[in-house]
């Protein structure tokens, strides 16, 4: 007997709304269908009405976790259009925050993976240690989530000598804790038994479905923009691209923990070789007309911004390709032939950031299933009619 199970738009395993329709037989998934568009915010349209500086803050709010990634991608592109180069110290600080963000995002994911696998102790411990990263970020930028440290032409805040040593000390603590988690995550029998072999994605599939980030790297595809197309300071920093060949959720876990360890190396290099000098240069008011594609390795994978300038102080077009969008096709492939029990794990393993990836919305009639294009004013009128019609139903009595 085949049954359709709806996971979402509202479900405890999902932190943001997305529709997953699973056709299952017993506990085995036969088919999976993904429906997007529950959380569309129209960021790209809004960006066309704002100046470049204002857009830095807007792009920062595309994502609540990799906020720095989006604003850095935008700033990198904009700086080329403005024909300025940020000073060395500014770049070091910018990518220091990038790596800190990668650590905080991966530790967050690790905790979530523990929770999805029903390993709540792991979740609690990882998130306790994640607080150290959050404290460092707060110390550098004054904020825990939206750091707002980027500006066009560099960064907005400098760090002093005391902060530098403090960060190095805290990184040593973090490194010890992370090694412990690497050991725990790969040896605890029930946890490994739960993750190994789940959500298999072969190397060929990962390449043909254009998987990005840790999802691709866990399938042994060494795809990392920091190495393939180095931006900023990454051509002078020594680091390795971490891969795994198990092609499953366990591999994605191991890749992420190893990447965190690599990030500590990068940060230590950046802090020990921090050059003196200013942190930013002044940017002109308007860029030259032109267009640019900016690439950046966010914690979840490759982040792409396309910016088109027409010579005014506002971009003519901003296109954002968030890494989650690149991983959706691979997710469907991973879900097939899995168990119901694996859905949250597989889906969480791409570290989905759903509202970052929402680029369009489609209106589908729930009865006929026909898509349609409707103007905003018409949508409002429809909502009003519906409210008037169903107003009686809504007046339910409070039970107590």
């Amino acid at each position, binding site marked *: 007997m085949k*049954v359709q*199970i*709806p996971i979402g738009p509202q*479900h*405890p*395993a999902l932190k943001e709304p997305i529709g997953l329709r699973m056709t299952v037989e017993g*506990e085995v998934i036969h088919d999976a269908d993904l429906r997007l568009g529950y959380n569309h915010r129209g960021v790209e349209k809004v960006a066309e009405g704002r100046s470049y500086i204002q857009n830095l803050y807007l792009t920062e709010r595309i994502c609540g976790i990799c906020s720095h990634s989006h604003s850095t991608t935008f700033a990198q592109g904009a700086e080329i259009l403005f024909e300025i180069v940020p000073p060395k110290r500014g770049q070091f600080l910018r990518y220091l925050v990038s790596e800190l963000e990668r650590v905080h995002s991966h530790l967050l994911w690790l905790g979530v993976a*523990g*929770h*999805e*696998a*029903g*390993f*709540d*102790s*792991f979740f*609690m*411990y990882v998130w*306790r240690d994640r607080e150290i990263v959050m404290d460092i970020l707060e110390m550098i930028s004054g904020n825990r989530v939206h750091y707002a440290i980027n500006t066009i032409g560099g960064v907005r805040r400098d760090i002093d000598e005391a902060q530098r040593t403090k960060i190095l000390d805290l990184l040593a603590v973090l490194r010890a804790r992370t090694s412990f988690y690497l050991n725990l995550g790969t040896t*605890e029998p*029930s*946890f490994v*038994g*739960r993750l190994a072999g789940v959500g298999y994605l072969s190397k060929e599939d990962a390449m043909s479905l254009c998987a990005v980030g840790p999802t691709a790297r866990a399938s042994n595809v060494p795809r990392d923009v920091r190495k393939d197309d180095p931006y900023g300071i990454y051509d002078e920093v020594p680091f390795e691209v971490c891969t795994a060949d198990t092609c499953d959720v366990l591999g994605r876990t191991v890749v992420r923990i190893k990447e965190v360890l690599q990030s500590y190396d990068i940060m230590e290099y950046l802090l020990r070789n921090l050059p003196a000098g200013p942190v930013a240069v002044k940017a002109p008011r308007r860029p030259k007309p032109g267009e640019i594609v900016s690439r950046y390795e966010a914690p979840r994978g490759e982040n792409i911004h396309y910016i088109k300038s027409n010579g005014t102080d506002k971009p003519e077009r901003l296109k954002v390709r968030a890494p989650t969008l690149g991983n959706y096709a691979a997710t469907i492939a991973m879900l097939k032939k899995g*168990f*119901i*029990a*694996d*859905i*949250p794990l597989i889906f969480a393993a791409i570290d989905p950031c759903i509202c970052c990836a929402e680029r369009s919305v489609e209106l589908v009639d729930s009865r006929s299933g026909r898509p349609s294009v409707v103007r905003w004013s018409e949508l409002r009128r429809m909502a009003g009619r519906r409210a008037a019609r169903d107003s009686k139903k809504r007046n339910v009595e409070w*039970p*107590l």
Partner: protein
Amino acid sequence: MAALKPLLYVFVYPGLLFLFAYGTFCEWFDRKVYARLQNRMGPTHTGRWGLLQPVADFVKLMAKEDVVPEKADKGLFTALPVVGLAVVATAMLLVPVWHVSPTASGFNSFSGDIIVLLYLLSLPTLIFFLAGWSSTNLFSTVGGTRVLTMLFGYEVPLFLAVLSPALLAGSWRLAEIAAFYQARPLLLLVNLPAFAISLVCVQAKLERTPFDIPHAETEIVGGTFTEFSGKKLAFFRLMTDIELVVSSGLLATVFLGGFPGGVGWGFVQFILKTLFIIFLLSLMRAATSRIRVDQVVSFAWRFLAPAAVGQLLLVILLKGFMP
């Protein structure tokens, strides 16, 4: 006075009043231990050290709106929590605390009461399955089938493991088994593997991590209990608490030598021994991650059942050599 005694057993000790108080205390103890192992505080605010938190949860749930799904079988849906609570509370009457003398049998202590107790502890599983099935919700149905699938895994090893000490003692009466081991405490060591096996099985029976598969929140929302709310959910939660007390009472009787020493010392022993077992269960809950339902069955038949059979063999051999 003689007529009053059964009433005392049923309503005060070890009956409903004690079960409610001790069951909620055990939930608090379990939550606190689990929280401290996870570097959290656990309940702190309601009552001293948060002791009254489970009671507060119960009272709050009792006052909440009680919704029955339109398509559900209303009679079954309403009856199940009450029946479940009655079953586990009845099971407690068979645990030999102060009201059972090791020599005389009675309505709550007879030859074969260990089987009846195990049977009464199996009924909640069936009740959970029916609860999931009768709610007609997809998630509940999946949870219900998972309950039954798990049952096929852990039930046989549990029976084998609990019955092997009884075989060694040569009695099917809990009070006699306890008395046998009180006289020869060293023989308890023989049953240690069975103790470990039955701890794992009880963990599965109580649906706690790593076996909390039927109500795995991230997969199937509330699982069996998705559609239950208000008083019914409160009853189910109380039922789980009492099941925890009864199962740990059974394990303490069979594997830790029971609760001798009359009303006072016997009571202290009951509390200490059950809390020890609950502590072990909490430890297991904190140290593991949830496994998949097919892994439960294969784990039970690949490791637990052969180990339980091995224990049975050991007991039979030992019995042959014993005077």
